[in-house]
């Protein structure tokens, strides 16, 4: 099915000026997105680290610190992948490098694949939370 759809497009369709322009702008915004997200992650992690060091006796200090580490690792994985994808795409558009262009698009696929997998994990956790919430309400009745 996938192959049928992919084969139906004009083989080796050339990207014209409009396409290249759109791709260049997309790359630029995605790059800014990754940079700002990484900076936000560093700030958030620093704040959590500061709180954990300054108030170690706080009841949620350890759990919030562990959550911050997990969040930072996930953000690092996602945003470095996006940064790598945009870097490759940017260079390939500037130098008309087909191989690098394909590598950049493959990295972009990887970025959305990781996001998709994280969405699945989040959905599982949310479903568990809803079920346990509903059962808690039912138990109290």
């Amino acid at each position, binding site marked *: 099915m996938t192959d049928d759809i992919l084969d*139906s497009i*004009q083989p080796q369709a050339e990207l014209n000026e409009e396409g290249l322009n759109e791709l260049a*702008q997309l790359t630029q915004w995605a790059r800014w997105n990754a940079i700002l997200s990484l900076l936000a992650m560093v700030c958030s992690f620093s704040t959590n680290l500061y709180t954990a060091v300054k108030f170690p006796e706080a009841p949620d200090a350890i759990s919030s610190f562990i959550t911050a580490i997990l969040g930072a690792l996930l953000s690092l994985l996602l945003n470095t992948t996006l940064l790598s994808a945009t870097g490759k795409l940017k260079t390939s558009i500037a130098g008309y490098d087909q191989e690098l262009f394909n590598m950049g698009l493959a990295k972009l696929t990887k970025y959305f694949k990781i996001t998709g997998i994280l969405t699945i994990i989040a959905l599982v956790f949310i479903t568990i939370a809803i079920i346990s919430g509903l059962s808690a309400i039912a138990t109290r009745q």
Partner: protein
Amino acid sequence: MEQKIQDSLSEFGLKLDDESRTSLYKTGRWTQFISVAVFSLGALTVLFIIVLKDKLTFYMNREMGISANNGARFWVFFIMILLMIAIIAAIYYFLFMFSTKIKKGFEAESTTLVYDGLKSLKIYFIITTIFSGLILLLNLMGIISKLIQ
């Protein structure tokens, strides 16, 4: 002369070859899944709040000390949640449009649709970049307030 220049540029131009088309198609499938999941979750949350309205009002009154005679507060809370869901849905609408247009573009052999898809993905990244900037600003304000204390 101009045609010759165009031809020579085409020789070095970027192409939507098999590899890049496969990558774009796979990206489209993942973005479709992500956007549909977000839409479903938003709808579920609204449904959850409507169905459990009385229970939520009761717990809000008890846990947050919200006055029982002020039912309007529940609606303020509900509208805020609804607004948040609407903003998130609007962002993910562009991701959904990207996947739809890329798929249709491949099916209809239309590079215009593929470019439209790329445009939708660009808008998605523009909005998420603005939100990332706002989150960064909030984090910086948090750090500054902690340093001042």
